[in-house]
Each structure stands twice: as C-alpha cells, then as structure tokens.
C-alpha cells in the first residue's frame, strides 16, 4: 500500500532550490532510509512531509504530494501532523515532566480524561522501551533523563498521538552506540504498526534497519531501491561512491 505518493516535487528556500523534481513513493510498514551528504535535501524532504517547512516564510514548493490519497496541502495541518509524527535529530523534551511530555499531543487533541491519558502514556512508553526505566518517576522533569532516554521519550511522545507514519530526522546523531542500538531496535519493532521514514547520516544505520534506501545528492533523488541492492549492486556510480565513503 502506498502511504506517500510524491510526483515531481520541487522546493525552494527563496531562490535556492532544495529539491529538484523528486518522484518517489513511501510504502506502508516499511522503514525507508534516506541517505546522502549534507545539503542533499534529505531533511528538507522529511520536513516537507509533515509540512514543518511551512514555518519558514522563505519556503516554496510545487508538485504533487499525496498522503493516503490526499494532497498534503489540502488536509487540515494539525490532523496531518497527528498522523505523521516526527522525532528530531537532538532529543528535545519539552520543559515538562516525563508524563506531561508524553501526554502533550493527546492533551492538545482535547483528551482530558486522566485514566485514558495514563493508559496512553504507559503504552507509548512501553513501545519505546522506556517504561521500566521511568515508571516510578513519571512526575520528574524530562531533563533528568539521559540523552538516550530522552530520545526514547521523544519517540514515546510521538507514538502517544497514534500516528500512521513516523519521520526520524537523524535520531541517533547525538547518541552513543548503546543508546543508538536501543533506538534502532525500537524502530524495527515499530514498523509492524507504523511506516517509518528515516533520514540518517550514518550509512551503516541505513544498511542495518532500512527495508529500502533512497540516496539523495544535491536535491536530486539519485537512486531508490531495496536496501540490500543499494548496498551490494547500486545502479548509479555516485551511490556506490557515497556508500564506500569516497565523498560526502
């Protein structure tokens, strides 16, 4: 099933073109990794999907981007963002308690029932493999958690609003290898229920967790294929060069 159907997408920041006629699809329950050197447009692509780029007054886009068969610019933006969660590059807890961080999205959606919120928070923390570590300290500030725990808290916070898609923007760039492994484990489990788009600077991470991998270069989609194909028999020599670390 196709979740995102992108046709001929072009984006600009003022007069600088960030993405150049990108056409691709994101399929249900896959982990799609996006790799490429910095300035290749990976993050712009990701933030386009939940319309976070729209916060930047200099951003412009054209082309056709459909989410579940609907133009993302025509659906209600709050609804769109609830359906498409996002985990950012750095752990970004809000200055609230652990509980309130996870409950934030549901509260904003109008859910006030305490029992219901408590259940949602518990489930979300369990799915992010954080429940056992924090269940006795839910009222503490989220800033008291370690970096890896904070990032899993951010994942739980995203899960709590029950999205269909989760966008990961270099989620492990600030984490040590052990925390990274935990986040990756969580991602692999999550794809049973969610569709995941993962932007990563870590080529090995894409190889480890991605079902399919897309390679971006200077705003163009160079190649998109099954991960094992990209990493064993890439069609384009630029993909090959990047994976082997020849540039970027």
């Amino acid at each position, binding site marked *: 099933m196709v979740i995102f159907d992108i046709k001929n997408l072009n984006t600009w920041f003022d007069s600088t073109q960030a993405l150049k006629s990108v056409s691709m699809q994101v399929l249900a329950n896959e982990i799609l990794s996006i790799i490429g050197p910095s300035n290749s447009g990976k993050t712009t692509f990701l933030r386009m999907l939940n319309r976070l780029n729209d916060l930047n007054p200099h951003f412009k886009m054209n082309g056709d981007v459909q989410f579940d068969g609907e133009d993302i610019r025509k659906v209600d933006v709050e609804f769109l963002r609830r359906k498409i969660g996002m985990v950012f590059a750095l752990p970004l807890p809000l200055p609230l308690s652990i509980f309130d961080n996870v409950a*934030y999205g549901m509260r904003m959606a109008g859910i006030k029932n305490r029992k219901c919120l408590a259940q949602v928070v518990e489930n979300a923390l369990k799915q992010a493999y954080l429940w056992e570590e924090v269940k006795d300290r839910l009222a503490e500030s989220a800033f008291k958690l370690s970096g890896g725990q904070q990032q899993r808290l951010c994942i739980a916070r995203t899960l709590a609003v029950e999205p269909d898609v989760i966008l990961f923007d270099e989620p492990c760039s600030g984490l040590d290898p052990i925390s990274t492994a935990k986040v990756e484990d969580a991602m692999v489990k999550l794809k049973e229920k969610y569709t995941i788009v993962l932007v990563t600077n870590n080529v090995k991470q894409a190889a480890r967790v991605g079902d399919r991998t897309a390679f971006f270069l200077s705003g163009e989609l160079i190649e998109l294929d099954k991960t094992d194909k990209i990493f064993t028999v890439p069609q384009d020599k630029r993909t090959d060069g990047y994976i082997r670390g020849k540039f970027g």
Partner: protein
Amino acid sequence: MKKNPYRTQNIAFFFLFLATLLIVVPVGLIVVIIIQKGLPAINWQFLSDIPRHGMRAGGIFPAIIGTVYLVTGAIIFALPIGLLAAIYLSEYSKDNLLNRVIKLAIVNLAGVPSVVYGLFGLALFVIFFKFGASILSGSLTLGIMILPIIITTSREALESVPQSFREVSLSLGASKWQTIRHVVLPNAIPGILTGTILGLGRAAGETAPILFTVAAFYLPQLPASIFDQAMALPYHLYVISTQVPNVDEKIRYGTAFVLLALVLFMNLVAIIIRTKFRKKKKW
C-alpha cells in the same frame, strides 16, 4: 625601544575599569546620601500619617497610597495590551512594511519625553474623555508610557524561547495558538515579569506624566474612587522641595528615601524572579 604589548594592554584595562567604576560611583553616592539624610525621618508616623502643617510635618501616607494605586492601575492597563501586542509581533506578524512601521513606532514611543505623555494624557483622558484629573487618567497615562517597555521585554522573552520547542509542539499536532499558550508563554514568563516590574518601577518614579493628569498638591484624605485625584510620591517630593518654603530637609530626604526604596524593591523582586526561573530553565 620595542613596545611592551602587556603595558598597552594594562593601560587599556585601567581605562576600561575606570569607565566602569564611574558608573557605579554616582549610583552609590545617590543611595548613600539619600539613606544618610532620609533614614532618620523614617518612622511609623511618617509612613502612616497624613501631611500636616502645610506639609512641614506629619507623614506621607496619602502619597504612598496614591503611588500604589497609580502603579497598579498602569499595570492593569498596560500588561494585557503589551503582552498581546508582543505575542502578535513575535509570533504572528510577517515581515512587511506595516509591521516594520509598528516596531519603529514602539521604539520611538520609548523615546518620547515623559512630560509629553503628561500633556497627551491631559488632552486625551482628562479633557477629551472627561475623566478629569483622576487616578484613572493618571494610570492610563502611565500605562501608555510603560507600554513600550513591556512590549519590548515581552517580545524578547517570547523570541528567546527556542524555535525547536515550537516545532516539537506543532509536530505533535498542536495548533499555533496551543503552542503559544502551552509552550512559548510558560517559558517566557520570567522575561515578561522582569519587563513588567521594570515598567512598574518607571511608573512609580515619574513626575511629569501625573503632573497634569492626577496629582494633587495637597489632599489629606485618601481617594475614594478612581475618579478622585490623589497625591503621589514623586510629585509630593517636587512640591515639598520647590513649592513649599521651610520644609525640613529630613522630610524631603525621607520622602525621597521611601520612593527610592519602593523602586529599588521592585527591581530587586524582578531580579529574584529572573534568577529563580533561570535556575529552573534547562536548555
């Protein structure tokens, strides 16, 4: 002979330090002189009694109360408007000509001499709206005077909340207003409070804006409603220093001491609130 770079540096440091010291000296002197001359006048009767014998004896209670009323009125008026304007400017306004004009107007409003505010208040509130010389007119005039302080500091406080917090909130499906209400505003409160209290201090100390709009030369009873005139500390100080002959120096400095203490106390509260919130802030 080769120049010794450390020598030049030491001389530069010396002058920089001297310039900084020169800022401290007048402040210190003002405070010391006023405490030295004013403190002996301070006693319970001085703080709680009405002025007597043509303001040459008795206390300054009505002036203290008048100033408290005026400052409270100014804040009731200026804080909501200033905060809403700051939210609009920092969160909603686009970078276009109109908004640049608005921002320029606010900067210029801060530079208008206070006596001009006094005349403006006289024309608009006292005469045009027929509020008369009253606490209402004086509060509104002071409120307009401190609006730019409140708007500017609140805007800075709102804009210092990291953009990433807004993005997180929006990415979880919160609307723009929910984001402002639940993420931006709570984290901007210390800055907003600081600005408010700085505004309070300014409103408490100004003479010119209340001169034509509210201040009574001599009014031994307390005001009964917001349409009454009132005495106020800065104007009372002006009156007993220049308009009434043979007022004991002690009473003048005592009044100055009370005014100074009130303003410094407010600034102190602002500093304490800011430090407290800064400690809580973790980004």
